[in-house]
């Protein structure tokens, strides 16, 4: 994968920042992912990572997510992994969901955000 390929799409919601991951994320483009996530976190709102359109992610990607989001001091961030997503199993074995608030749909994540910080 070339480095300039878009792997992150950021959407600005009123109460959160939506980060949709797309394509294949590996060692070749993990820097782009990290930068995108840092930008999202910098907005100060809870970050919701959505992976419906993500084809592949490996440990390099998981590590980047963990560094940027899971370990941040910001309010709890969220991960939306629909069960039918191509990478659902990858996330399941990555151990990452433990570090994030994990949901199956974006609406679930949003509902939790609206209930307030836990």
């Amino acid at each position, binding site marked *: 994968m070339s480095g300039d390929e878009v792997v992150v799409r950021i959407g600005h919601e009123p109460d959160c920042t939506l980060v949709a991951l797309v394509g294949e994320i590996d060692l070749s483009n993990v820097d782009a992912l990290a930068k995108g996530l840092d930008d999202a976190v910098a907005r100060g709102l809870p970050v919701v990572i959505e992976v419906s359109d993500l084809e592949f992610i*490996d440990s390099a990607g998981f590590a980047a997510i963990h560094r940027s989001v899971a370990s941040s001091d910001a309010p709890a961030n969220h991960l939306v992994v629909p069960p039918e997503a191509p990478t659902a*199993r990858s996330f399941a074995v*990555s151990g990452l969901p433990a570090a994030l608030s994990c949901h199956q749909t974006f609406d679930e994540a949003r509902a939790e955000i609206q209930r307030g910080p836990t």
Partner: protein
Amino acid sequence: LVSEAGVSGVGGNPATSRGQVAVAALVVVLIAVSLLASLLSSPKAVPPYLSVGAAFVAAAFFSVRVTALVAVWGTLQGVVLAWFVDEYRGWSFWSRLIFGLTTCGMSIALAALRARREQQLAEAKVDLRTADLLRTLAETSADPIFVKDREGRYLVANDATAVALGRTRGDEVVNHRDRDLVSSEIADWIEADDQRVFRSGESLEFEDVLQTEHGERTYLTHKSALRDETGAVVGLTAVAKDVTARDQTKRALERSEHRFRSLVEATSAIVWRADPSGAFRERQPAWSDYTGQTWEQQRGHGWLEAVHVDDRDAFVSRWNQARVDTTLFDSLTRIWHDPSQGFRHVACRAVPIASDDGGIHEWIGSFADIHDRVVAEQRVQRITRARRLVADAASRVAVAVAPETIADEALRVLAEHLPRHGSSVVLTDAEDASRWKVIAFAGVRAAVADEWQEFRPGVRVPVQDVAVTGRSLEFDGPADYKLAYPDLASSIDDAGAMGPTFIVPLSAGARVLGTVALTFGEPLDESSRHEVRLALDELAPVIGHSLNQAQFLQLEARIASSFQQAMLELYVEPDPRLHVTTRYQAGSVVLEAGGDWYDVIHMPDGRIALTVGDVVGRSLQAATVMGRLRTAMRALVLSGSDPVEVLTRLDALVETIDGAQFSTCTCVFIDPANERITYTNAGHPPPLAIPMVGEPRFLDDAQGVPLGFGPGTARRSVSMPLPVCSRLVLYTDGLVERRRESLDAGLARLADASHAARRLPLEALQREIVQSSFADYEQQDDVAMICAELVSQSTTRFTRSIEPDPGELAPTRRSLTYWLRAGGAAPERSRDIVLAIGEALANAVEHGHNGRARVELDVRREGDQITATVQDRGSWADQVVDDTRGRGLRIMEALADRVEVDRGDHGTKVSLLLPSGSRDVR
């Protein structure tokens, strides 16, 4: 000479000569001597005899008057003087008187006698001369000259007279009468003419037609009465002139004049005269009548104002040219016609009348009104043109146009050629006669409906009636139209057209397909309406035929397209060694469908054949030929050993399949085990090879002629390496060919697009190629296409040797995925395997390299297990603590049954044992 003689003869005076002068002198001397002697001498010395002598001398030589004078003088002298002189006593007075009177009378009588004699002599002499002259003149004259007496007898007649009377010599005519010479009928009117001359005593002219040996001759005869001394008419003299030639000329002239006049009248020509410069110098009534120009307006060059302003320059320049050349002026132009208040086409001619000095004396011009003819010709031309245009529209059906397009074309043709109108074409549904729709309109507010509309019970529309009767409808105006179709009243009012409406059936054979309707904005006169009928009569069958053809071709195209799709919906058996995507994309031009094919054939010896081809022609026929060719090729490939052998046998086969000749195709044999291909090409665009590294390249080293091109076609094949991960693109010309563009440009576009997308998954590569080909160009032709990627040499083993470059990871994972999936692995299972092996590869690429040493991947399928080893040249022992790598190991361990990491001196080797999850163990 004659007149001189005549004059002197008739005058009767004594000729003056020396003798006469001498005699006269003698007379004078005698008188003078007797007078002197009487006065001066004695009476005896002067006898009276002297004077008597003088009187006799005078009588002998002089005229009666002179003689009388002399005699009277002598008598007076002798008698009267002697009376007073006594010496003459011897004579008595009376004797002297008697003597004197006697002498006097005798001398006078003598003089008179002599004079009479002299005159007779002179007259006789003149007569003789005149007759001679007359005869000579008459004989030498070519014109008849004759003299007749009152009885009509010819006294004098020359030869020409004889010829006129059917003889040859004058002698044969003289002393004869006309009655003896010509038919009594002719003699009757000749005599009648003669009598008129005799009665009137005048000179008269007659025109006689006589039969001569030279045929019928016309004579103009001048006859004069001949009088004797008493003035009584005794005969006639005549001179005739043969005017036959003059007569014929005159008659010819009359005939030609008559013809000319008839011509002028028949061509309604207007004639005028102009001076050499072309100026009108006198009133030209005919010109005025036609153009309505007054004399003041037309005088000089004012008449040119009546010539249409658009034609005037050409007219004047032609006129000037004719003036310079002094030739006939001839021009077609338009001239204002006052009675009809419009310009009319005329054929204008003017003839220069030459003057004596060779210049132009004047111009006689004329023009004939040929307006009706020109208008008729123009109308014929318009209709011919309309027919041609519609025929052209019809011919465009052959390159697939919809009925809507045909209808639009037809309406445009009508709009160009007929007065302002609104028009529409309505079709009835060929499959369901109870439905109709408007497919085209022009100049009216109408909606072209995509949907068919049902005929509703109780609501009448013209198309229904026309379809039933097959007859045209015509309405004089909106009122009539509304009366006939009250349901359309509101739309007729909306259109606001005041002219007539024509609704004409569009038929194909006995079937009425629909109608074309025209409504004119303004009322039309009868001749215009006739023209409309004429045009519609010409156009309607053409439109009907075209629509029918279009409907038929569309139907055929739909069948062909379905057939084609069905033929190509083949199941391409997955092969772990070769990842293949195929595509068949129909072009926008529906009727071009058919004839393109692709095929992927697994050969018994483990090779895989790819073929792409294109049958000449289109539609259903091409689609069926395509089906046969593809099947034949599949059979030949399965039994063949080499692409050349396949195509050579196909060449022979093509001869037996109607319509298969000149089809093109490409045939590529892929040998995955040896990573090689062999290809050959029969007139087809060359396949494109896209290596993982480097530029794409067209495989154009084995181009040959199309299939069935002829005997002795030598084909050849080329063999070349095709490393794993390399891709091939086979396609038909619809992908690269554009109108008005060279094939090279299309090939370059394909190569560029392929290169740009070379790292994308194969499916994405194919999508990119198609998109870039038709991003700015509407796809016309069908495209059949195969994209293939060589994944592995073997179905049971997948090996890669990759650069230590993170960019290599994704393609490798992708190839591995193809290999796994084609080998039967379920999608979820193959994702797990790829994730696990991907982690191992990523570790090796990130940490395991030493310099530029490659990373070796070896994956094997054994039964229901996958074993994978990743060998690098580095050591990643130090990085185990790293969070990422630890995470990677954890993932591998979570997914694999067993993970072994062997950290050797020369690198690290990761071995994974994974359940294959194959449903179909190969």
